[in-house]
Structure formats: structure tokens, C-alpha cells
């Protein structure tokens, strides 16, 4: 079977901004693995291909071995086409009758399985043509298949997903090095320290309420406390961190301070003290010392998040922290409000007060307002430097993708910049 993962424009992918501005939705992390890894593990395909928004195709090709946006992949004998938003645990292929395709209520294909005979009667010239011809010729089922709809759902589900992923991983015990004196609580069966991982003396690993998975090459410095369920990614370093339950830290991160029920995608730094809770932090982010986010309102009401700077969305949860896009940097002492949306490639200077709940991508937030700052070229130079420090290349494809993201996010930024000018003018009057 050939699995085709879909993350197409004009779907709900914008509901995962700012994280999906620069990656397909299935690359998002929940638990130990990404959504895509879970779909692959669930369906066990012989081959995987994918379709992503055209502007990120070239950059994504640099990160994956899968064919990207290749119509030739639509000519296999047995295709399973699945939206990257479908929850793998709930993907029930057996419930799918021959000739059926499952769509959601907005008309987005969630999954279908096509035989070679099915494909003979469908237009496979492009993925758009194929989807159109499926709608015309197949039995359309509208079904409430469980899907991921917003980034904060991943955060809120992270603790339980960590437990399920730990069971699925079937890894237990100490294969790396744990230096004495150590303090391991809970069942050893619920702790896994991978080969090459190093746990320094005076580290507490508390698996009493959930498993702790420390991946290859990770290094845990003294006075760190890790509460399960928790995942520490490959080659990440914890520096005296209070790493509380429900936290996933991707590869090559540096994390200190307090972190609770949050997901750090990878290659990001939160080196110093400061609280991060119920947050999703993208790649190549640097959070300055004492950067903190609120994840609970003082009146304990549901947290709202605005994905466009205008319309607040009720998350249905009393706890949601910040959503922070790739390459964003914060100064020391930055304070993010509850349910803050912080775009990608933003530069944030603290004001001493909680910042606005919506900061657009490529914003230079200075003196309490959104400005154009020094422009995107300066941001690209910084990105190049930051990636180079971790042996990664800022490629032409990356820059082309970010140029398009700059355009995609221009309207919200322009509005915020104008508002900022008016504020500055009144301050200077």
C-alpha cells in the first residue's frame, strides 16, 4: 500500500499557524513522535508520498526522503490517501467500504483507499484533479472522524499521547548512563534512557505518574527534575530544568527554567529561568532569560487565541499558553499573555508588561509596538547564523519559502504596524 499524506492549501492548515507556516501539519509533534510518524506507524505502508502547499515543497524536499508534490505517486496500485490532520489512533480503515471516501463537513478529504481499478476511472493528472474526480465519482461519506483542528489540541493531548507513545515504543530501562547519586522514582519499567544519553548526578527522574523517555545523546545536567509523562529528544540538553509532566522536547534543544505540559518542536533554546506552560514552541526559537508565558487566566475562564489578530477563538480550555513560530527570538524578561499567538521570524523586546496576545510573523516588536524593524533580510542573516551553529544550512529553498511566508502574513503585519505607528504617535505627541 502506498500512503499519500495530504496538507493542501485552502484546508484547515491555517488553524495550526504559526507552526504550519513553514511545515506540513503532520510534522507537528504530539507525544514522542510527529503526527506523520503516527500515521505511518498505524498504516504500515510500503511507500509514502505527500502533497504540501507548493510554496514549501522545495524546502520540504530537503528534509524528507518522501516524494513531495509528485503526481507520479498517484499512479500506484493501492493508494491510501489520508489528511495529515486525521488522528492516527482513530484511523479505522476497516470501516471504509469499497468505493467510499470520507470527507469532513467543509468538503476536505480525510481519507480514502483507491485500488488500481478505481484509479483507472479517476483523473490522476494532479492531486487537485484527483480530489475533484473522487468527489464526482466516489461515494462521499461525511463522517466525524477525529481530527486535529488547532495547535493547542496537540498541547492539551500531549500528556496522554506521551503515555501511548511510550507503550508503542516498547523501550524500557537504562541503556545510556545515569551517574550517581541519582533519584529515580516510580517503576523502572516506565523510564527509558537511550544509548548515548547521559544523566548527570543529582537529577530526579519521577516516573510515578507517567513514563520518562530520554532519547539518544540527550544530556541532563544536575538539579534537573523530570516528571513523567515526558520526552526529551535526541541531543537535547536540560540545564537544571524543572521539567514537569506532559512535556515533549524535540531534538537539539537547550532547556532550563520551568516547563510544563508544553511542546518544544526542536532546535530551540530556552536556556534560562522562566516559565513555559501549555505552549507550542517552533524550531530555531530562542527565548531570552526570564521569558515566561501565562497559561491560566486569573478568573479561570476559557483561554481564547486569535490566529489572525482579530477573531478570538475559544479554546474550550482553561489552560493554554503561547504558540510561538519558527525563528522567533525574545529578549530577557519577555512576558507572554495567556493564549498568545507569536508569529514566526519575530523579534520581541520586553516591555515589562504582558505583551499583546497577537504578534504577527516578521514583526519587530519594539518599544511596545509592532514595527517593520530592520526588515526581513536582517532576520534571514540571523537565521543563517543560528542554523549554522547547529550544522544546518539556510538554503535557497528555505529563503524562497520564507519569502512567501512574508507575503502570506503581510496583511496582518501591515495592520499591526499601522496600529503601532498610531500608538507611537500618541506617545510622542
Amino acid at each position, binding site marked *: 500500500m502506498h500512503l499519500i499524506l495530504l496538507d493542501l492549501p485552502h484546508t484547515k492548515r491555517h488553524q495550526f499557524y504559526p507552526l504550519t507556516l513553514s511545515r506540513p501539519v503532520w510534522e507537528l509533534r504530539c507525544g514522542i513522535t510527529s503526527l506523520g510518524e503516527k500515521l505511518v506507524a498505524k498504516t504500515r505502508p510500503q511507500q509514502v508520498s505527500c502533497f504540501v502547499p507548493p510554496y514549501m515543497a522545495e524546502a520540504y524536499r530537503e528534509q524528507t526522503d518522501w516524494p513531495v508534490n509528485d503526481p507520479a505517486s498517484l499512479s500506484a496500485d493501492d493508494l491510501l490517501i489520508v489528511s495529515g490532520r486525521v488522528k492516527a489512533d482513530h484511523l479505522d480503515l476497516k470501516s471504509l467500504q469499497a468505493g467510499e471516501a470520507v470527507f469532513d463537513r467543509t468538503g476536505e478529504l480525510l481519507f480514502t483507499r483507491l485500488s488500481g481499478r478505481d484509479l483507472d476511472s479517476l483523473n490522476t493528472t494532479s492531486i487537485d484533479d484527483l480530489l475533484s474526480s473522487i468527489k464526482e465519482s466516489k461515494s462521499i461519506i461525511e463522517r466525524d472522524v477525529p481530527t486535529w483542528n488547532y495547535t493547542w489540541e496537540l498541547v492539551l493531548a500531549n500528556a496522554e499521547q506521551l503515555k501511548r507513545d511510550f507503550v508503542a515504543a516498547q523501550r524500557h530501562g537504562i541503556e545510556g548512563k545515569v551517574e550517581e547519586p541519582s533519584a529515580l522514582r516510580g517503576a523502572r519499567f516506565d523510564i527509558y534512557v537511550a544509548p548515548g544519553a547521559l544523566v548527570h548526578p543529582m537529577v530526579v527522574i519521577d516516573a510515578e505518574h507517567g513514563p520518562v523517555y530520554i532519547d539518544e545523546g540527550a544530556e541532563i545536567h544536575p538539579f534537573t527534575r523530570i516528571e513523567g509523562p515526558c520526552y526529551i529528544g535526541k541531543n537535547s540538553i536540560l540545564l537544571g530544568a524543572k521539567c514537569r509532566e506532559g512535556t515533549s522536547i524535540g531534538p537539539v534543544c537547550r532547556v532550563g527554567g520551568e516547563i510544563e505540559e508544553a511542546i518544544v518542536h526542536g532546535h530551540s533554546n530556552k536556556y534560562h529561568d522562566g516559565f513555559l506552560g501549555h505552549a507550542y514552541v517552533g524550531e530555531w526559537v530562542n527565548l531570552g532569560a526570564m521569558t515566561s508565558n501565562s497559561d491560566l487566566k486569573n478568573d479561570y475562564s476559557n483561554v481564547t487565541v486569535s490566529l489572525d489578530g482579530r477573531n478570538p477563538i475559544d479554546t474550550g480550555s482553561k489552560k493554554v499558553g503561547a504558540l510561538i513560530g519558527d525563528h522567533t527570538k525574545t529578549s530577557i524578561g519577555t512576558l507572554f499573555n495567556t493564549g498568545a499567538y507569536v508569529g514566526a521570524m519575530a523579534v520581541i*523586546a520586553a516591555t515589562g508588561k504582558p505583551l499583546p496576545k497577537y504578534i504577527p510573523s516578521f514583526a*519587530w516588536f*519594539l*518599544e511596545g*509596538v509592532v*514595527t*517593520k*524593524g*530592520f*526588515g526581513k*533580510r536582517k532576520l534571514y542573516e540571523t537565521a543563517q547564523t543560528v542554523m549554522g551553529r547547529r550544522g544546518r544550512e539556510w538554503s535557497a529553498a528555505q529563503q524562497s519559502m520564507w519569502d512567501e511566508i512574508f507575503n502570506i502574513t503581510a496583511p496582518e503585519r501591515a495592520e499591526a*504596524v499601522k496600529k*503601532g*505607528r*498610531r500608538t*507611537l*504617535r500618541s506617545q*510622542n*505627541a
Partner: protein
Amino acid sequence: MSSVSDRVVAVTARVLKVDPENVKPEDNFTADLGAESVQSIELVAMFEEEFDIEMEEEAALSVETVGAATEFITKVCQEQGKL
């Protein structure tokens, strides 16, 4: 209505908190008027607000003197139909 030059001087004085009488066309924003990097960004924003224009930030930030700013802004205003 004040000239572009007068308005540039007024904005500069307001943002950098200097006496407009002491702002000369040949003054360098950084060396003579003490603009720090954040204030340079603020100046660009305030010029855009004052003249209702959009300036390309790198080009705008490369302008070094008050007189050069007047020339640059005059050109942008003409291009964007604001004069």
C-alpha cells in the same frame, strides 16, 4: 502646510527629544542627534505615519542625515502620490 523639510525636523525632534531649532539638515541622526537603533526604527515609523507613506525599511534606515531624509521622503511621497 509645512514643507517636507519642516515636518521631517518636527518628527525628528519629537522622537529624539531634541529642540527643533537645533536640528540642521546636515545633522547625522546617530552621531549628532544621538539616535539609537530602536529610535531609528521609531523614526522610520513616525515618518511613515506623518506622511502616510510606506518606506522600504532597509533603504529608509540607510539614510544618515536629516537633509537626506527629507530628500528620501520627498521622493517616496511623489512615488506614492502623497505630495
